[in-house]
């Protein structure tokens, strides 16, 4: 009997607590338990109010964090897009084939040769050989820091394919360190024509094409072209 007297309006207040809790569960975090009576139940009511406060705080924090994460994710996605774009750009930039002299093409290779790039490189070179009718192509690998079996294999394939089109390839720019490494790897590159520097390759190609006289460029080569015009 005494317990009952200590809690006034127990039924109504518990109903109120239930209402408030279900409101909170439904997402209304501004609501609090209100009561003017001070007795044993007041402690419970205050504790529930404190819990709702904490919950509101945590919820706000996690919402803020979620927003931050989403922002970061978006940034990363933008960056990734840029990286992909740059990779594509690089791919196009990476394998220019140019005609440096009558009958001589040059393909400077710079950086890393992955399978996709090597494919584009080979296509570009072969197309250019057919388009220009050049019979000498110089592949300069000065800018390739690592020549492993895959790179060597690709060079062999490119040279063989070019040969099928009637063009001779010269590989230049093999550093002393890379030369030793190739020997230790055990790759046989003896059926490829190689030169230490681009200059050596150029001199060799011009001699072969009979474009040099006594180490100097033949001048009548220009005259011939002018006469033809």
């Amino acid at each position, binding site marked *: 009997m005494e317990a009952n007297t200590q809690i006034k309006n127990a039924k109504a207040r518990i109903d109120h607590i239930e209402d408030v809790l279900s409101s909170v569960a439904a997402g209304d975090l501004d609501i609090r338990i209100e009561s003017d009576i001070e007795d044993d139940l007041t402690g419970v009511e205050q504790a529930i109010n404190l819990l709702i406060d904490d919950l509101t705080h945590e919820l706000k924090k996690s919402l803020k964090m979620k927003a931050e994460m989403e922002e970061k994710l978006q940034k990363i996605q933008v960056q990734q897009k840029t990286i992909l774009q740059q990779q594509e750009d690089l791919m196009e930039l990476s394998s220019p084939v140019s005609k440096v002299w009558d009958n001589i093409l040059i393909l400077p290779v710079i950086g890393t040769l992955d399978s996709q790039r090597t494919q584009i490189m080979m296509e570009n070179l072969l197309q250019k050989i057919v388009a220009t009718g050049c019979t000498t192509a110089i592949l300069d690998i000065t800018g390739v820091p690592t020549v*492993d*079996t895959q790179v060597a294999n690709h060079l062999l394939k490119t040279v063989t394919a070019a040969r099928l089109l009637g063009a001779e390839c010269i590989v230049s720019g093999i550093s002393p360190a890379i030369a030793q*490494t190739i020997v*230790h*790897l055990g790759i046989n590159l003896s059926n490829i024509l190689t030169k230490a520097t681009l200059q050596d390759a150029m001199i060799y190609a011009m001699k072969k094409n009979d474009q040099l006289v006594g180490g100097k460029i033949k001048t009548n080569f220009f005259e011939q072209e002018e006469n033809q015009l």
Partner: protein
Amino acid sequence: MHEIVSDKSWELLENCPIQNEYDIVKARQIVRQYAKEAGMGIVDQTRITTAVSELFRNMYMYAGGGEVIIEKGLVQERNALIITCIDKGPGIENIDLVMTDGYTSGQGMGYGLPGSKRLVDIFEIYSKLNVGTTVRITKWR
């Protein structure tokens, strides 16, 4: 063939995953950098970079990727760079065969594994079918 275990005294320098072709390039650049820092000359730098390039590519092509552990420490009382490549691929059935010059199960030249063995000082390989392959190379200064 024995299981490959790490020496506790070695210092871990880097741990990099190999999942795509760009990882191969990145990881071998890291290896080259450590070789440089270890005081290796340009020839040794090129050798170890080429050797790891073969191993990384094998991991990527035949095992779908893997993990690379770069360590430094004393091996046979010499300062060395130790690189361990671990994959969870199909494993190698016949180690002697894959270590033969010119043998390839794929599109390569068949000089990757035997070639990289000739480029380093110690070459260890351990493989278990359907579990994976571990290759460790050691190169001292």
